[in-house]
């Protein structure tokens, strides 16, 4: 086929639809980090910083890697919210496009193939993540939570972490007949990960066995990587490991999704 690649045309239709709601979406993307950083970074963080400074032996802020709580928590919330956005964008809209509005079927009656439909949707989700992560970084900088130029890399890290959840979730969503499973995933996977993957406190605080569990979760690697960016020690071997883990998850999820999409849409 000549002309624009087929998946770009699928992406274009999501963009077209987004034009109707972009104002609300952009406003939310900025409001969310403001709320989180004000409440946790400034409000709760004030208490945490004072408490740590008054400990016997004055360990200061070493428990947080030598930074204030605001600086500590900002990258955690950045990737945590990327995960949440990715999950919600990869569940209900997929179900809607398959069953409710039948948007995918409409696309598949045109030159687009299932792989194009999938790739277009994933790219749209990645764009949403880019917007959210970019807005988060801008707000974090305004709060004084950015300490290194390497922080700009936290933007692709937000996209990468989000996509590590998105691709397996769309693969799963394409197999579902109802939305019941989505809220189970939300409650049993997403919320615990958000709370216990090192976003809000170092996982060293967890009991030994749970530390190991936390280290196996994808969000932990996203948090660690984003934090390395924001604090300016990105270039380490462990960063490579974190990124490799997340990339592998994106790839496995995309492979699974290409199978579940074909099974669901081209039978």
């Amino acid at each position, binding site marked *: *086929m*000549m*002309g*624009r690649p*087929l998946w770009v*045309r*699928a992406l*274009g*239709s999501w963009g*077209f*639809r987004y034009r*109707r709601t972009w104002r609300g979406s952009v406003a939310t993307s900025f409001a969310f980090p403001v709320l989180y950083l004000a409440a946790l970074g400034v409000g709760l963080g004030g208490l945490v910083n004072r408490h740590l400074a008054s400990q016997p032996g004055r360990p200061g802020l070493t428990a947080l890697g030598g930074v204030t709580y605001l600086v500590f928590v900002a990258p955690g919330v950045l990737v945590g919210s990327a995960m949440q956005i990715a999950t919600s964008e990869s569940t209900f809209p997929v179900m809607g496009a398959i069953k409710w*509005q*039948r*948007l995918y*079927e*409409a*696309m*598949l*009656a*045109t*030159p*687009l*193939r299932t792989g194009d439909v999938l790739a277009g949707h994933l790219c749209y989700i990645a764009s949403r993540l880019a917007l959210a992560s970019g807005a988060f970084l801008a707000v974090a900088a305004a709060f004084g939570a950015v300490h290194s130029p390497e922080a700009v890399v936290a933007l692709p890290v937000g996209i990468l972490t989000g996509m590590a959840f998105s691709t397996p979730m769309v693969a799963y969503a394409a197999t579902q007949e109802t939305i019941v499973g989505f809220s189970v995933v939300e409650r049993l996977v997403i919320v615990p990960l958000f709370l216990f993957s090192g976003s809000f406190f170092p996982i060293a605080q967890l009991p030994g066995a749970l530390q190991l569990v936390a280290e196996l979760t994808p969000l932990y690697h996203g948090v660690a990587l984003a934090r390395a960016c924001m604090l300016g020690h990105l270039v380490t071997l462990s960063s490579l490991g974190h990124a490799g883990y997340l990339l592998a998850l994106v790839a496995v999820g995309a492979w699974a999704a290409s199978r579940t999409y074909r099974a669901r849409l*081209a*039978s």
Partner: protein
Amino acid sequence: MVSARGLTKRFGSSEAVAGIDFSIRRGEVFGFLGPNGAGKTSTMRMIACMSPASEGTLRVRGLDPSRDGPTIRAGLGVVPQQDTLDMELTVLDNLLVYGRYFDLSRRVVRERAERLLDFAQLSERAGSRVDDLSGGMRRRLTIARALISSPELVILDEPTTGLDPQARHLVWERLYRLRQEGVTLIVTTHYMDEAEQLCDRLVVMDKGTIVGEGSPRELVDKHVSREVLEVRLGEGGHERLAGDVRGRVERVEVLADRVCCYGDNGDEMLALVHGLGYQPENTLVRRGSLEDVFLRLTGRSLVE
């Protein structure tokens, strides 16, 4: 335009389409007539390259759907059984979004969209949300949308199911105009009047197979008598009546609520029934139709 040999579609162990042959010529309106579950939609989806054939060969515009899906679909318009319109977008935006899938420039899409809205008699509703349209309007919009790429072949899966008579006639009239413009149309339907009105040629499908083929007139001439007498008796007695007239008319069928007698002259058959002493509750003499063809070929009515 389309040809199939031994075309088969299986879902697990069930066979939705069981090895059918047909060929569709350029510029004709070709119908697939059959009850729900006959395999019409599965056949349509294979022709539209939206579902791979399990077996057999299929050629659409000379190309192989398993290899050239995107190229075939670029010249194909599809009107699916269930509308796939974007309910949140306006009527015009639905056409604009769809045209972009075919990589038409914004200018071309806009020009065509305006022309097609006019064709579908929806120009005044261009800015309305699809949600606010009636069923007939949505159907016309779906048809307009399928035409955005100026296809030479349009597939319509039950184009008028669920529409009121007025809305149906409007759709038929628009489809007739398309045919006059030289567009090849493939229509599935379980309405015999739709098949009779629209189709140049059709196949009758039942349980995944083709049981009859030809123009509506040919099918009726071949399988059914010129005239049909329908008799409804007050209480039962249908079997007895059938026994009494059998051998004296061409053929007789007993249905749930009536007896159909087939022959060249309906009035003579009616006189026979009266002469036998029956006092029917009501009777109807009519021409043989595709409904009778279906009954003859499958032993069942088209719409149950």
